[in-house]
């Protein structure tokens, strides 16, 4: 059994707004095993990006614990030691806005090395090495972001995240702004890097088909809470939570073989409620086709159904 790199316990992140408290993340517990790719899937507004940002340190958790190699990092980023900061890096969704338009690729990649005081004569060598890792030619050093295509920008962003040899990279929908052919290339780069450097990924996305092909385990999030978490193959062969089934059956696919893998057609209905007014009981009961009486009253708890397969639903609870 491999060790856990990150353990998140009952993490909550609430944002006070004039309309009421937005419960973006509302009690999430999971762990990330060293060397794996954990896919975090959910609709917009489900809190998956907030979870990643809190892990990065951009937000201070309202409640709960984040343990990184046993060390509590659920503090404001300013209190996090520098040596720990470099262990967790992030690749953002929109490559167009995350690179400084006035800096060359060389400068963009040098910046993290400068901040973390890598020896001066080492820096340029490291930058070249990074470009090699993400399979970009060396003449890209002197290009500005506007000279690059969307996919190339994202590649530079990945190189920047790798600069300090992090052990965990948070990928926040790194390919959702790109075309499928470019997505495939970026994903290959991402997977190659994992093979070479043994980094761990938290992969945030809404694309289930992509998840099927890259992640080790999949976690589904809905309204700030996890619904289901399972190893990838088990997850797609035996999805249990009604929301998971709804998501899976909503995916338009290309072949009949894929059609056969999808669970029986579950008509998706309703929309994700606002995280300000979370429905009582199970937050999914308004859209659920398997609703029981208890669902409107009591929030179900996570339960292990099979080997590493956890579901949070009353249908599967042993006492219910």
């Amino acid at each position, binding site marked *: 059994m491999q060790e856990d790199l990150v353990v998140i316990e009952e993490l909550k992140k609430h944002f006070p707004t004039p309309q009421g408290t937005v419960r973006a993340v509302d009690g999430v517990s999971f762990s990330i095993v060293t060397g794996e790719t954990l896919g975090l899937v959910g*609709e917009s507004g489900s809190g998956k990006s907030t979870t990643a940002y809190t892990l990065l340190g951009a937000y201070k958790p309202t409640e709960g614990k984040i343990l990184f190699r046993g060390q509590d990092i659920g503090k404001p980023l300013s209190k996090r030691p520098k040596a720990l900061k470099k262990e967790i890096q992030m690749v953002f969704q929109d490559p167009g806005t995350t690179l400084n338009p006035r800096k060359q690729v060389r400068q963009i990649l040098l910046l993290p090395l400068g901040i973390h005081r890598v020896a001066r004569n080492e820096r340029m060598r490291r930058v070249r090495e990074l470009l090699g890792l993400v399979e970009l030619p060396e003449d890209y050093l002197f290009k500005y972001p506007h000279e690059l295509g969307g996919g190339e920008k994202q590649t530079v962003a990945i190189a920047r995240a790798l600069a300090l040899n992090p052990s965990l990279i948070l990928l926040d929908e790194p390919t959702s702004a790109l075309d*499928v052919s470019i997505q495939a*290339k970026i994903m*290959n780069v991402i997977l190659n890097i994992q093979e070479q450097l043994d980094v761990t990924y938290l992969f945030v996305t809404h694309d289930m088909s992509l998840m*099927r*092909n890259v992640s080790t385990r999949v976690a589904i999030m809905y309204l700030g809470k996890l619904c289901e978490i399972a190893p990838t193959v088990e997850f797609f062969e035996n999805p249990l939570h009604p929301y998971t089934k709804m998501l899976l*059956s909503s*995916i338009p*696919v290309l072949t009949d073989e*894929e059609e056969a893998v999808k669970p029986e057609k579950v008509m998706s209905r309703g929309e994700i409620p606002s995280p300000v007014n979370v429905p009582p009981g199970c937050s999914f009961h308004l859209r659920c086709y398997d609703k029981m009486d208890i669902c409107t009253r009591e929030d179900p708890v996570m339960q292990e159904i099979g080997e590493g397969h956890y579901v949070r639903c009353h249908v599967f609870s042993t006492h219910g």
Partner: protein
Amino acid sequence: MTSPLLEIRSLHQQFETFKGLATVLNGVDFVVQKGEEVGLIGEAGCGKTTTMKCIMRILPMPPGKISQGEILLNGKDLLKVNLKRVHGVRGISMIFQDPTAALNPVFSIGQQLTDVAKYSLASGQRPSKREIQGSVIKVLQDVSMPDPERIMKNYPFQLSGGMRQRICIAKALIGVRDLLIADEPGTNLDVTIRDQILRLLYTLVENRAIPVILISHAIGAVRNLANTVYVMYAGSMVEVAETNELFTSPKHPYTQLLLAAVPRLTGGGIAKGITGRPPDYLKPPAGCRFHPRCPHAMQVCQEEAPVLFDAGDTHKVACFLYR
């Protein structure tokens, strides 16, 4: 064989830019038969939306310029019709990609829909206010909006993304007589909401028997609706086939690579993708515009631009491999 509903012949759309002339549509040939659902796939910037906007005649000219080609609707060339009278000639509606940008934020839903109803029904007849109101309510019910009267008083910002897209579909349905163009409906929406929107669209199309052109990044969505699928690359059609045929045996190297790049629910890892970048429209490569990225490029590909060759009864490919 009956004459097609819509036929685009060798359409060339150019844009005057500061850096020179960009030929964005480089000879588009496109046919929609009566009662047919046509899908159009291709990557960002390949000219899908531009083609549709040419049909709608909503591209700004200048800087745009149609240098060659014709768009025939029931045999009548739409490009020769005076822009002011084009509404009377064609009943084509378009659903745009971003429902937020397609609705005016300062008018209520009711006002926006009644305006469309007033002008699209106006040819010859003078409907009363009550009739217009009734038709708007009916169309809102058609797109399964709960409580249409209340929705009509709402403004776009009060509705969710999925609801806005339903309003846009309603708006397009009011005036549609000949053809509905759906340009990536649901791309900005979540999977489950997109599924709802697409299912709604399928039912409406089937019930009303309106021909549809569906453009989508979600290639699977096109597979579910369309009878015929066109594949577009860098301003021209590279392949057209009956849907099943296209998805089971794609012929053009671009189509093959594109379909392979889509991650599958059955697993099997990630394909290699397509090397290189889509071409710069200011300096497109000579000959076949795909040849710099093509694994099968030959000498002739650099010199000559391929036309659509027959590769089966319902299958045409613009590639010299199939000449």
